[in-house]
């Protein structure tokens, strides 16, 4: 296995697990999971125009989160319904636009072996961006997650903070599509933090443990993938699932 594959997987693991803290605490686990499919039509269009699928995925996701943000604030449709409609529409568009079946499978499950130097470079930039911005806005995210009402009364701009969060969510999903694919990136944002939540007594320890497990399950996944010759994305997620079950018996 190429060293760049390992580094890319680790960056994705860290970025997903640190942002995942707020995905779980804001009860958006299924939203992020479902949202990940929105990347598909964007990836298909990138393939069609011969550009890196990262850009297509990111563009489609940004379009989706902005749509969610405005519809949630302006209309009375519930978040669930909005995300549900976006998800099925994207899946349908993805099926039509993907040039061939094999690439669709790569899109759904990821194919890290097809990773290019450009992908590695993009992972550094985008991954670094997600980790940095999450840390910078950590207090804001924590406050608005804990109590919107209290945060508002203390002058925090809840809407603005939500928008930043949604953009980061789009970024982390776009980041992960190469490694674990659209079907499984959602799980990578949920698993490490869920394990951490079972084992920690404070927000800070939960965050630190989440990142630790994000790295740990990526390493376990890489080893399992090599040892059992199974796809890396699936190996990472399954390592996480097993650790999650173990964490229930702490």
């Amino acid at each position, binding site marked *: 296995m190429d060293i760049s594959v390992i580094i890319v997987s680790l960056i994705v693991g860290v970025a997903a697990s640190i942002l995942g803290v707020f995905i779980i*605490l804001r009860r958006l686990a299924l939203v992020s999971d479902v949202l990940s499919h929105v990347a598909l039509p964007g990836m298909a269009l990138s393939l069609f125009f011969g550009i890196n699928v990262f850009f297509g995925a990111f563009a489609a996701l940004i379009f989706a989160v902005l749509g969610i943000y405005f519809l949630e604030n302006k209309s009375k449709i519930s978040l669930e319904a909005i995300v549900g409609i976006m998800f099925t529409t994207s899946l349908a568009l993805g099926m039509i636009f993907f040039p061939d079946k094999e690439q669709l499978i790569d899109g759904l499950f990821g194919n890290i072996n097809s990773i290019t130097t450009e992908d590695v470079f993009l992972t550094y930039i985008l991954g670094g961006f997600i980790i940095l911005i999450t*840390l*910078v*806005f*950590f*207090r*804001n995210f*924590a*406050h608005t*997650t*804990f*109590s*919107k*009402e*209290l945060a*508002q*009364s*203390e002058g925090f701009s809840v809407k603005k903070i939500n928008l930043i969060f949604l953009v980061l969510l789009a970024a982390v999903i776009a980041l992960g599509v190469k490694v674990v694919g659209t079907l499984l990136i959602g799980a990578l944002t949920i698993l490490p933090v869920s394990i951490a*939540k079972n084992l*920690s*007594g*404070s*927000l*800070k320890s*939960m965050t630190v443990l989440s990142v630790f497990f994000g790295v740990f399950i990526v390493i376990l996944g890489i080893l399992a993938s090599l040892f059992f010759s199974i796809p890396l994305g699936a190996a990472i997620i399954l390592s996480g699932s097993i650790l999650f079950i173990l964490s229930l018996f702490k």
Partner: protein
Amino acid sequence: MNILEIKNLSVKYDKIQILKNISFSLKEGKTLALLGPNGAGKSTLFKAILGLVDYEGEIIWNKKPKIGFVPQRFDFDKGVPMTVKEFILLHANSNWNFWAPSKEILKNIKKHLKYLNAEKLINKKIGELSSGQFQRILIARALFGKPNVLLFDEPTADIDVEGEMTIYPLIRDLSKKLSFTPIVISHDLNIVYEFADNVICLNKKMMCSGAPKSVLTQDQLNELYGEGVGFYVHHNHHK
């Protein structure tokens, strides 16, 4: 000196009048109590002072306001594993202080918890606190921001009378020690009588204002709450 003057303040929500022509001034260092039945607009008045609702009229500060706010009740997620220390640190002025608080900030947090006899709760999860403990933490947290005015919206339902009696002398003592001016929403006439320097009765409009002993007459209370409301004696008053 008046730290705050409010002139002809009116608030409407969707054309419904919540407050009409409220005028009063807040004397520095003197505890002001807001009294009134449910739905009288007391919490809305706090929101106007905090700048959270649109209003007509004037709110004039004669000193740069630093407002500490202890909300009555608010929704929060008990599933967030936030400790008391972290909850107070949300008030810290930078993200870095949240992640890696300096020794000075930690000492300051402990000091404020100690004021409220709550120093042992520092590493407890917020979701595991009793309502009385949580209220103390909210006060400590509001004071951590070094306010010159403290808005205290009293929760009634979940605090027992004894707990209620201990929090007011504490607020009064702390207001002297840390020099802030408390505005207290209370539902308990005895507490207002005993701890407030001035009182304002609200029921969408101003019903009375002045020192509790001169304005809290039976006639006034009848007008504010309807017949049959008066003083009763707490048996555990001076425990």
